[in-house]
């Protein structure tokens, strides 16, 4: 019930509540100013840019190999996916044909990274909803195993820089398929754990169902992508709609939900983990020996003039690279299309009229990575 304050004698003022950039559940250095009436959010103003490092400009001053490292740092929870867009843009400009084995390995690594990123989401989201630490540890455990595998392959736990224009930096370890299967087994158990802990929990359902709803039309208008738009019922999955790598060779269904609320965003991500596990198993079956780099690669890559926009399906949505080359060994202009930035646009629409506690979980359900938003 909203009391009509104009009829009463004294005026009341809405409280401005500053959330972030040092708030524990803003997932980094996001800041939003809430205008609240009691516990209801009446207005929301997001502020971004605290983590702006000029990654795009830095890439313009580095050659195509060095740029890969900066891509890792824009999307640190799914670095393989970020690298993939970048190297694919370079490959498209240079017209390099990537060997099949390299493509399969790239797919496996990207899907593994999607799993680890989604687990990270589930863990952080669980904390946002208010479970003390348990889901966080569950998520962290699974992510840790995947990251161990990445470390064995690339030598680094987060900033891999393993993909190269043309293929991969070096061959994967000999026990790669067995290790991947081990990790998948554990991830499958992790999905079960999360399912048991949260999906059917009455309080969890009460908190997340019909909260932060965004309709399909609005979502499209906002330019949302990834699990966030699929939860609104839009079957937009770039792996399916514009297959890259070998995604047209394997079978999978686009996962959607029709509620568009926080619960559906959670559920879509949970199901996508299972889907990715399935995808990786298909990839492993088709993985054959072969070269991982084209025969003739120049020591220093120089691109012809041209421009290209390459987009791939990262865990958070469409991760695009727009690259303009005017010859030479550096891009003339590089623009990263960040999925989180577009998804974040809908925050106000999703939060206004909800409770303060809802604003927190809505923000959590968008699953932002601030270094990707600010770049």
């Amino acid at each position, binding site marked *: 019930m909203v009391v009509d304050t104009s009829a009463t004698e004294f005026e009341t003022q809405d409280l401005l509540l500053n959330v972030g950039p040092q708030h524990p559940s803003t997932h980094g250095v996001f800041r939003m100013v809430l205008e609240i009436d009691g516990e209801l959010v009446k207005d929301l103003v997001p502020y971004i840019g605290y983590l702006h490092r000029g990654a795009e400009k830095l890439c313009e001053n580095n050659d195509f190999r060095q740029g890969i490292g900066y891509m890792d740092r824009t999307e640190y929870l799914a670095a393989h996916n970020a690298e993939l867009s970048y190297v694919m843009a370079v490959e498209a400009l240079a017209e390099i044909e990537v060997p099949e084995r390299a493509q399969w390995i790239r797919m496996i690594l990207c899907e593994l990274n999607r799993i680890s990123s989604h687990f990270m989401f589930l863990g952080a989201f669980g904390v946002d909803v208010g479970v003390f630490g*348990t889901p966080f540890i569950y998520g962290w455990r699974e992510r840790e195993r995947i990251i161990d595998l990445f470390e064995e392959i690339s030598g680094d736990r987060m900033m891999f820089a393993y993909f190269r224009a043309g293929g991969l930096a070096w061959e994967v370890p000999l026990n790669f398929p067995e290790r991947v299967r081990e990790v998948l087994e554990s991830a499958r158990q992790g999905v079960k754990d999360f399912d048991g802990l949260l999906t059917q929990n*009455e309080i969890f359902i009460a908190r997340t169902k019909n909260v932060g709803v965004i309709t399909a039309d609005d979502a499209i208008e906002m330019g949302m992508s990834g699990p966030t738009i699929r939860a609104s019922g839009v079957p937009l999955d770039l792996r399916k709609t514009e297959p890259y790598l070998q995604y047209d060779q394997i079978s999978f269904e686009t996962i959607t939900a029709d509620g568009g609320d926080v619960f559906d965003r959670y559920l879509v991500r949970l199901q996508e983990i299972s889907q990715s596990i399935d995808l990786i198993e298909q990839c492993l079956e088709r993985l054959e020996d072969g070269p991982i780099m084209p025969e003739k690669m120049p020591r220093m890559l120089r691109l012809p003039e041209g421009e290209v926009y390459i987009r791939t399906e990262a865990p958070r949505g469409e991760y695009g690279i727009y690259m303009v080359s005017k010859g030479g060994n550096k891009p003339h202009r590089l623009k990263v299309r960040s999925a989180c930035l577009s998804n974040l646009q809908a925050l106000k629409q999703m939060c206004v009229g909800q409770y303060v506690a809802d604003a927190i979980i809505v923000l959590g359900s968008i699953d932002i990575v601030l270094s990707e938003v600010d770049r």
Partner: protein
Amino acid sequence: MSTEIFGFDGVNVWVDGLVRVLLIVGFMTVVVMGLIYGERKILARFQQRLGPTRTGPVGLLQSVADALKLVGKEDLRPRNADAWTFELAPYLVFVPVFLGFVIVPFVLDWQVRILELGLLYFVAVTGINIVGWIMAGWGSDNRYAMIGGMRAAAQGISYELPLVLSLLAVAMVVEVPSDSATGESLRGSLNLNEIIAAQAEIPNLVWQPLVLIVFFIAALAELNRTPFDIPVGESEVVGGPFVEYSGIRWSMFFLAEYAALLIMSLIFAAVFLGGWAWPAGLFQDDPWPRWAQALLVTGKAGLFIFMVFWVRASVPRLRIDQLMSFTWKILLPLMFAQVLINGLVLVYDWPEIVLTVTGLVGVLVLVMAVDRAVRHPRPRPAPATQLEGEAAS
């Protein structure tokens, strides 16, 4: 006036009272530190961690180290804070909780004072600490603290009702052992010792399953424990009323929180599980030594505490409106019904099995009501503030 204390006869009442209170406060502080360690260890096991391991053998000294660190810290007060309110708030949270220990029966005859209106005293005294929460929230001059304080007030007052009603429901049907003079069996007592004595045969949990569950839920809310940790919710209001406190004052809040948990668990053990009495009338004629009784009480209270930790490790936090509708629309009507039925049993002398049956039916109703509210919710009305918010931007 004089009393007997630990075998010493003729001790002055005031001295006796002081000794007992000091003993309790000292003992409880140590137990509470143990509780904090226990919670960290138990939660860690739930989360596949080890918990504290570095301080002392298996981390046993972790609480001591924490306490020393907190005492050594600077006691900060924000410049804009309301000095008196801010500085006094911890005492208003701390003192009522420890006052509550006055009536808690640890073992037979071992308590500070046996009060005829023990339960009433307990409810009245511990209810005061809500004032401390509001003072902390208001005095800090911090918006998170204020929201937290307001939430604490709303929650504390609302959940006091089912808590009190649940204790009342038990107290009114307790069968007091017959008075030897008149030979008449009396019913209804607020004296905890009598309530325990009445459970020598069968503990109250058999007769009052619904009341037990409602008490547990309301106790969780009173203790601001998950899923009702809304006032202090880390991910929303970042510690709520305590956000500006540091050092010794913060540790007083912390201590009070765990002391409240301990006292609630002892009350639970006394009222529903029969305190020091063995179940099914075992060893009734030949009371066990006090250390065995203490062990039994510890076990029963520990069960409650373990449940609280378990819940904390597994469920999310409720939202403030859900919290309110849960107590006012579900818990309170159920408790009214239970009190009414208990009254009927009392007046018409119905067999006690009626209590069990109606209690179980009540549990079923509770589960169904929650299930219906969660899985088939009514659509939320369109928020009226949305238009204003849109217009403002």
